[in-house]
């Protein structure tokens, strides 16, 4: 059977306008901006402490409206990836 996704309370977001813009947008929807993702320009790591840490379904709430914000070019709720040590 196909494995079910496990959603986390972390998001990857692509926003132009720099760190300040990302911070503003994060706080607008209740997220914490944990900073740029590695060397990927305009990609930020957002965390939402009021969303359940692991869930098998997408939790809806006021934070969900960030998906509709015109300043957000792309957003992805992070899913747990099964990775094994070899």
């Amino acid at each position, binding site marked *: 059977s196909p494995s079910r996704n*496990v959603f986390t309370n972390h998001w990857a977001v692509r926003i132009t306008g720099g760190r300040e813009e990302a911070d503003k947008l994060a706080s607008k929807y209740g997220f914490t901006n944990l900073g740029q993702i590695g060397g990927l320009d305009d*990609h930020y790591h957002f965390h939402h402490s009021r969303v359940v840490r692991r869930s098998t379904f997408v939790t809806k709430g006021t934070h969900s409206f960030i998906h509709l914000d015109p300043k957000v070019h792309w957003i*992805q709720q992070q899913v747990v990836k099964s990775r094994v040590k070899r």
Partner: protein
Amino acid sequence: YARNDLNFVYFNDPKWSNMWYIHCNDKNSRCRSEMNILAAWQRGYTGRNVVVTILDDGIERNHPDLAQNYDQLASYDVNGNDYDPTPRYDSSNENKHGTRCAGEVAAVANNSHCIVGVAYNARIGGIRMLDGDVTDVVEAKSLGIRPDYIDIYSASWGPDDDGKTVDGPGPLAKQAFEMGIKKGRKGLGSIFVWASGNGGRQGDHCSCDGYTNSIYTISVSSSTENGNKPWYLEVCSSTLATTYSSGEFYDRKIVTTDLRQRCTDGHTGTSVSAPMVAGVIALALEANPLITWRDVQHLLVKTSRPVHLKANDWKTNAAGHRVSHLYGFGLVDAEAMVVEAKKWKNVPPQHTCTKMSDRRTRYIRADQKLNATITSTGCGEKADQHVVYLEHVVVRVLIVHPRRGDLEISLISPSGTRSQLLARRLFDNSNQGFRNWEFMTVHCWGEKAEGQWTLEISDSPSQLRNPEVLGKLKEWTLILYGTSQHPYHSHGSQHSRSRMLEIPDPSPTQDLRSPEPSQGPPEHEEEEEEEYNGTCDSECGDQGCDGPDADHCLNCIHFSLGNLKTGRTCVSHCPLGYFEDTEARRCRRCHRGCERCVGRNSNECLSCRRGLFFYVEDNACVEACPAGYFADDGQRRCMKCHENCLTCVRDSDRCTACNDGFRLAGMTCVPECGNGTFFNLEEMKCSPCHMSCSTCTGPRMEECLQCAQDFLQQDWRCVQTCSPGYYEGEAAGYPQRICRKCEDNCLRCQGPGASCTQCKDGYNLVSRTCILNATCNNADEVFCEMVKSNRLCEKKLFRQFCCKTCLMAG
């Protein structure tokens, strides 16, 4: 087989004798040293100044075999979001994996502890990222840490090797790989080394792992000591090279560092192969730091060899490379790598030529083969995409199928090289098919791109299936990577055949040790002359010669070297170990230990013989450098430590003690930051703590070590007033006031013990204690008397025991 090496290097590390894959230790028998690591060391390459990091569950940075080479700047804890990759310890030692891999790369040599790493002078770091939820963000962050500082990223993990998973990097991790190869190492490209999977027993195929299957990773598989396929090994066409690893119980194993400062020779699987290759690449990068990520792959293709590795599918492709689905191009050869790297010129730019099939759906009928073809010109019509000589070939497929595991896919190149992109996987029952999955092969490396490419798909039902539901190939795309010019010929003849190894230059000092010029007899001693009428050597002076060579001169134009006992000769310049006495026209010997000098005295040296180091302050050659200097083996000089270091080893910035005002962070001296600041590793300067802290480890309020004045410590934070559920108190031996937790179930309190003033919902305040609402309701007078007479209400254990009832009852 390689004969035992008579110039055997000995290390005092206790497991050195067990490291059969590096050297031969039994003088009477043959042994497996085809990886030629020892020979690469003997050429002087040990990974110096190359930075490797291990993406895993952390590394034990204070392990005695790692501490000296540990590099804080090549490390990060993505799980904990700090700079310390130390693994989380538990009773099962679950997080031993990264430490084991790290040792294989850069365990310190000759320190009487455990083992010797393949690149034992390389810097080693760890990125702790597997000890938590792994997401696309976590992977992308990990793959992109300090790309200009870290040269090689080694990963020995991946999606499940259960024979039914098809998974790979997400969009962010893919971008991180691309960013790494484009911008990492200041544009030369980060080098990602990956362990191919361990799913051999599950019939897994490493083409279903998008990490090993990526063109950006160097996928490494394993062989047993005897050249057999280990039970865990997966086949696939993207494997580039192989190292030894463990096999059956009777095969010898690999030894490496282990958690809790130990060593291990436990089963290693393919995990150890990635760091071994990372180590070999570190040796090659030391030989030539300017090689690109693609040069490294070319070097591996060119130098890896089938030797005695057993596989029934070894074939020679049209470019002359021997390749197998089990071992790629074969066992890595460290010596050939460094020799080739040393003289390597960068390969021409990589071009990509893409061609998509028509969008006609083709049905895949059971027990029949479906052939689909694409004819490629190698994009000759577009100069920036033109591929003549192939590197990687990728096939992106969109296949719908009722049982994915029944599929077998092969690709046949225009030259006739067949690569199996996918073998049947008995455990894969998925009906998801392959949705734009990319298969990759390296088997056509060096071949010509132009011509007809054939994709061959077979469907062999392994169990009863609905015969009416057919698989469909909806579309496929051929992506050819390579160069328009020949990767080697375009640079001239510097790319020799890899096995024609250069002979190391004999050390000048070795040649010059023997002539010990005597201090006694004069150089121009009278000798009986014989008649000689021929021409003299051009170095002979006006007195002529008694023979044709320079040692037949009767006097010299420039300098005479040697004496009667050892023989004398005329030279234009004095060799090393001598200085030129221009007045006497003689080569005079330097002070013992000097290689070049300006006079006989010990303080007139300019450089030193092997084993000694030139100390510039005294112009002398010393056995050990004084404090503030380190011994540079390459230059044989005492080099100054970094200005912040008090003492250092091997490099100016590998500090072992710091000057006043600085403290050690790993092996770097960072400023001791004043109160209210911390050392920010990102910005390399002292940055302010959060306003609530007086000392801290980072900028956030949770990173306080001590609180600022007027702040109280509450659960690792500093607060101005204690939160509900806490009361203000003092801690013994701790100058600062702290917030202590009230008793359980107490919402507000005035101090420790029974001092509650408000209870949580569901509790009642009785005698300044919170007790559960649900008390018994059947207490009679006798019972209450018993409770009261035994003063049970005063005993914490019995407070819930009808106390409220009794108290209410008076």
